[in-house]
């Protein structure tokens, strides 16, 4: 990467850290450190919520998915606006009004200590590991693209994040998120502008080409529980997924607990309700635009430069032969794409014939790519899936100096905003739900603050180690992620049960196990069922069991029945 691009990245990292430390003023109490003394405006919280959800995977993986698969992924978010509205009238007033620092703390007041501890433990288990994977995903890509050791790219992302999160607490995290969200949107718009100016065909022709490959097909109205990206899976399963994520996951709940009032907390979530689908569509459209651009500018045969280098060194002649075939297939596809663009109108026999020819050329090209990917897999012994490398390669080779640095800084910003929220919430849950609850219930704020900073540093170090050894820990991470999907919906069920009058801790605790068991049974018994439906199953089973066991067990002290 050009030194000027690196200068932009380094300047951005320095600014975030310095400003984060400046924002640590007023965080000398645990209320300031964990909840910003409930002082943040709705738009700060709203941008923080959006930045937390938008990770580096969105910037490089989802754009890549747009390039290879088109817009249909956006259906996953169709339930989000509804989920935000529901949360605004259910869990947000409950959690914000309770004065709790964590979502799980509220569960002890409503049910009992064991329900609180179990849900908090499940959160720490899954988020602790996923935090590592959030760093690992861009870390692996940067390592291959820039030719630096994985540990360095993990450190580049991880260390500044740990520093400002540890020193500044939730306030620094939220304000850094605001800057990061702005940078992310500017970086995406920069690509859109560059694509608009550099595209060799008109926007209408570009859409014709994208549409002919099905990449503008957003909606799939088929009703099948085996498909994740359908209208109904997105609307129903997606609503439960978003209710679980935004309503019960401490990494999100902690964002809106910092809002000045319940109304401002609601407004912060509504920002996502309004903007998430358009933003996600923009991310995917960037990928679609890059796909069309590569119809006229020859893309690399392998997008992962590290794999390309190894394959050239160890299977040079086979790779050179594939490169020749790829060059010929590209020229034929380019001519076919131009013919599709040149035909006026969107139907008719001439257009149908041009489209059929283009699709045949595209299939030929993809077949050669498939052979190259198989060769890379044979030679390196690693997965050669290179969706995450498409956009970074495009950015570094096609974007002007300065804008490329801006985009790379945007990817780092996206990673940092998600990691910071995770570290902040992991530390809060460790200290509030375990240390203060079970180890040292009576201590000064200064003591809890010191422990919280230590916990942030420890979780950060743990995440960096997991990220560095992500490849070796692959199967373990997969197990933890799968285990995480068992209880996500079930925890939502516990929070929904909290709103049912007369429900008690015994029902919640037993329901949690029943919900997780039901999801595990579906996962292993019917593995083709999309994970989106697991949350629905988990939540419904917990509610059913909890309602059936209403009145069983002791009510909590100072019980709240509504």
């Amino acid at each position: 990467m050009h030194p000027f691009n690196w200068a932009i990245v380094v300047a951005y990292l320095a600014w975030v850290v310095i400003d984060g430390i400046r924002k640590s003023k007023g965080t000398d109490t645990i209320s300031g450190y964990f909840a910003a003394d409930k002082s943040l405006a709705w738009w700060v919280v709203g941008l923080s919520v959006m930045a937390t959800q938008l990770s580096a995977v969105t910037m490089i993986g989802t754009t890549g998915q747009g390039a290879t698969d088109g817009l249909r992924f956006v259906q996953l978010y169709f339930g989000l606006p509804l989920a935000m509205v529901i949360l605004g009238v259910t869990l947000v007033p409950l959690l914000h009004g309770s004065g709790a620092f964590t979502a799980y703390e509220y569960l002890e007041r409503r049910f009992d200590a064991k329900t609180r501890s179990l849900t908090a433990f499940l959160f720490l288990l899954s988020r602790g590991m996923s935090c590592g994977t959030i760093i690992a995903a861009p870390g692996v890509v940067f390592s291959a693209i820039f030719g630096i050791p994985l540990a360095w790219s993990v450190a580049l992302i991880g260390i500044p994040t740990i520093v400002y999160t540890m020193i500044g607490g939730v306030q620094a995290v939220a304000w850094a998120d605001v800057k990061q969200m702005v940078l992310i949107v500017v970086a995406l718009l920069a690509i859109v502008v560059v694509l608009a100016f550099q595209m060799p065909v008109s926007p209408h022709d570009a859409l014709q080409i994208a549409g002919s490959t099905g990449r503008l097909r957003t909606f799939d109205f088929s009703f099948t529980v085996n498909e994740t990206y359908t209208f109904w899976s997105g609307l129903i399963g997606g609503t439960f997924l978003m209710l679980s994520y935004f309503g019960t996951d401490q990494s999100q709940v902690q964002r809106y607990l910092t809002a000045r009032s319940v109304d401002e907390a609601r407004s912060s979530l509504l920002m996502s309700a309004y903007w998430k689908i358009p933003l996600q569509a923009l991310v995917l459209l960037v990928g679609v635009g890059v796909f069309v651009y590569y119809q006229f500018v020859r893309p690399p045969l392998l997008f992962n430069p590290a794999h390309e280098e190894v394959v050239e060194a160890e299977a040079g002649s086979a790779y050179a032969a594939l490169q020749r075939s790829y060059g010929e297939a590209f020229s034929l596809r380019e001519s076919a794409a131009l013919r599709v663009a040149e035909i006026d109108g969107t139907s008719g026999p001439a257009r149908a014939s041009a489209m059929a020819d283009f699709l045949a050329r595209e299939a030929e090209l993809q077949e050669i790519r498939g052979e190259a990917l198989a060769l890379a897999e044979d030679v390196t012994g690693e997965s050669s899936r290179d969706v995450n490398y498409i956009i970074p390669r495009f950015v570094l080779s096609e974007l002007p100096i300065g804008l490329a640095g801006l985009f790379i800084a945007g990817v780092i910003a996206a990673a940092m905003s998600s990691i910071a929220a995770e570290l902040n919430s992991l530390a809060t849950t460790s200290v509030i739900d375990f240390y203060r609850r079970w180890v040292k219930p009576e201590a000064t704020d200064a003591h809890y603050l010191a422990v919280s900073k230590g916990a942030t540093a420890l979780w950060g170090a743990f995440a960096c180690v997991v990220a560095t050894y992500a490849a070796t820990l692959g199967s373990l991470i997969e197990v933890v992620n799968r285990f995480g999907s068992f209880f996500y919906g079930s925890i939502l069920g516990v929070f929904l049960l909290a709103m049912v009058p007369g429900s008690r801790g015994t029902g919640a605790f037993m329901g949690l196990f029943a919900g997780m068991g039901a999801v595990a049974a579906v996962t292993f018994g019917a593995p083709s069922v999309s994970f989106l439906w697991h949350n629905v199953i988990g939540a419904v089973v917990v509610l059913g069991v909890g309602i059936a066991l209403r009145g069983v067990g002791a009510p909590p002290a100072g019980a709240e029945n509504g």
Partner: protein
Amino acid sequence: MTDPPASRAAARARFRSTLVRVLVVQGVALALLGLLQSIYSG
């Protein structure tokens, strides 16, 4: 957490108006995506 009846009615009204606003905005966004699909996906 039991709200008095008046504030419950106000909350319900707020919920309804918020829901309508969000649905209208999303409806427009989805209609645009649908239009793109119907014009260019043949």
